[in-house]
């Protein structure tokens, strides 16, 4: 098991390398540089800026310099659009916020979604089941950027219950986390229900009952392990979806997280910031992916991890 984990983590490195390279060239090959669209900057000033940030160097030299900075000093370089700040600073500030938002949303999604799905499966075709699944359906059919304004208007501004912007106290977190969590919770609920229904039909559940196991333990000890496997598999893409969703959430709720910076950086052609954020996202997700695989292998003894 440990050797598998180590192998997976080591395997991340070449992939990340690939990602970095692809994005690097992708970004730099695009027409227009970070300073091109400034309000009528005189050509000498433009040339000076480009020189300062080494943007007029040949592309491969830029690439080598970038890699050197990154791997030798862990330095992503300066932000082009926020003079005086480095990418590392920006990431250091915004990453914890995004992680908080993301993790809270994920936990929330599981806490809502799994029980909802279980209720649906245990009370199949009853009112409770239909109610839970209808809410889940709403969750996956309404975009976050529609849900958010509705919640803001109704709970935030309309009723003055919850704050609608920034990220200071726990009260600030409620709406954004809920917004982020709901669509994911919906998926989790549906997956849980389907997974549990599948397992409940299995022969070994009949065996468990024939042994005299109580219904509660049939569900908890026998069914859940297999029934929740689809949810475990989903955690990877689920968190990825949450991250992407955070782009929307952070914008609407004015939260100083990485997602907000990413979009701005892309639109502003701030190469270094784009690189930094993309790389951080990539690392996060691939690590999570590896963790999920290990968890799956641990839960299902039939899976051989090699």
């Amino acid at each position, binding site marked *: 098991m440990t050797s598998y984990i180590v192998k997976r983590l080591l395997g991340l490195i070449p992939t990340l390398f690939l990602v970095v390279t692809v994005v690097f060239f992708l970004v730099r090959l695009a027409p227009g540089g970070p300073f091109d669209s400034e309000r009528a900057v005189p050509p000498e000033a433009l040339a000076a800026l480009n020189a300062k940030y080494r943007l007029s160097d040949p592309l491969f030299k830029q690439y080598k310099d970038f890699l050197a900075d990154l791997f030798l000093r862990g330095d992503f370089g300066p932000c082009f659009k926020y003079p005086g700040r480095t990418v590392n600073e920006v990431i250091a500030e915004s990453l914890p916020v995004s992680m908080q938002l993301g993790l809270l949303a994920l936990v929330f999604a599981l806490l809502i979604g799994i029980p909802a799905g279980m209720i649906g499966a245990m009370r199949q075709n009853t009112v409770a089941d239909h109610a839970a699944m209808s809410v889940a359906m709403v969750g996956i059919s309404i975009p976050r950027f529609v849900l958010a304004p509705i919640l803001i208007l109704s709970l935030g501004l309309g009723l003055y219950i919850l704050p609608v912007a920034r990220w200071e106290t726990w009260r600030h977190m409620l709406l954004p986390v809920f917004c982020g969590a709901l669509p994911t919770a919906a998926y989790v609920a549906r997956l849980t229900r389907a997974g549990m229904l599948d397992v409940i039909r*299995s*022969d*070994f559940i*009949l*065996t*468990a*009952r*024939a*042994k*005299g*196991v*109580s219904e509660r333990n049939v569900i908890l*000890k*026998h069914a859940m*392990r*297999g029934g929740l496997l689809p949810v475990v598999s989903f955690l990877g893409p689920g968190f990825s979806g949450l991250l992407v969703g955070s782009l929307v959430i952070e914008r609407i709720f004015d939260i100083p997280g990485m997602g907000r910076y990413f979009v701005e950086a892309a639109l502003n052609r701030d190469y270094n910031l784009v690189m930094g954020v993309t790389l951080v996202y990539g690392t996060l997700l691939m690590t999570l992916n590896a963790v999920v695989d290990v968890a799956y292998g641990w*839960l*299902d*003894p*039939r899976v051989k991890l090699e």
Partner: protein
Amino acid sequence: MALLSVRDLKTHFFTEDGVVRAVDGVSFDVERGEVLCIVGESGSGKSVTGLSILGLVPDPPGRIVAGEILLEREDLTRVGEKRLRDIRGGRIAMIFQDPMTSLNPYLSVRTQLAEVLSIHEGVKGAEADKRIVAMLGDVGIPAPESRLSDYPHQLSGGMRQRVMIAMALLCKPDVLIADEPTTALDVTIQAQILELLEKEKKALDLAIILITHDLGVVAKMADRVAVMYAGRIVEQGTAAAVLGRPCHPYTLALRRSIPRLDDASREVLPAVRGMPPPPGKVPAGCPFHPRCDHVVDRCREAFPEERELDGRRLSCHVDVKAGDAA
């Protein structure tokens, strides 16, 4: 009195497409130390009968609608869920057809076996492990201690079925219901498992209800036989009587359809003509009448009452003797 007594059991399924009378008036007794084989084709209701005894029929859509199931003096159809759970695995145990899917793939052998001990006898930990190892050895699993932390997929088919049997017998039940225990196994393993069952029967003075469609298994194991067709028992008695001198046209036809190595004269293998009725579309009167060679008018009208004939109980309007068949 009999150890287990089933009286006029009726288990019906209430589906969108109508009522399916899977078991429609079945009665039999089982004694200690004897093997009763319930034999029939797919859809005859034999498995549902087994499930009904332990109250394991999925509800919805199925339900026991009539009859009694007497375990000594207790009527299992009237007993509460909690008592039923005590009985399941405690006094009556059941094993199933496919050991690959009948064992929980996510739990180790030890966990699954220890569970039975914990529930019924409150035994846990090292004491439980000792009992488990002893039982595994008893059912013929070599080096049982090393098997404790194995998972089902690591065992062969025959070993898995042995584990199932060990699990069922750990708490020394009085009755074992075996639903097609050898159907999913290789022929060579089948014989071993049947021998194991025979051995355990003697060791524990078990009553075994062996549900099967394989007449070879019946011939080898049965003390008594009950032949089921379309939810009813059409003939039941000692193995010698029912298999040796079958009286019901269905039993006769079944026996005739077994190919024999020493019978070179036959050209056409006599299969029972027609097809068994789909559950839910059982013909009126005697359900076998559309396929029967000896049908008379009464057969289409009413199901024959059970009567004694030549040492067995028979449900047939006609008196047919082995040897009457063409």
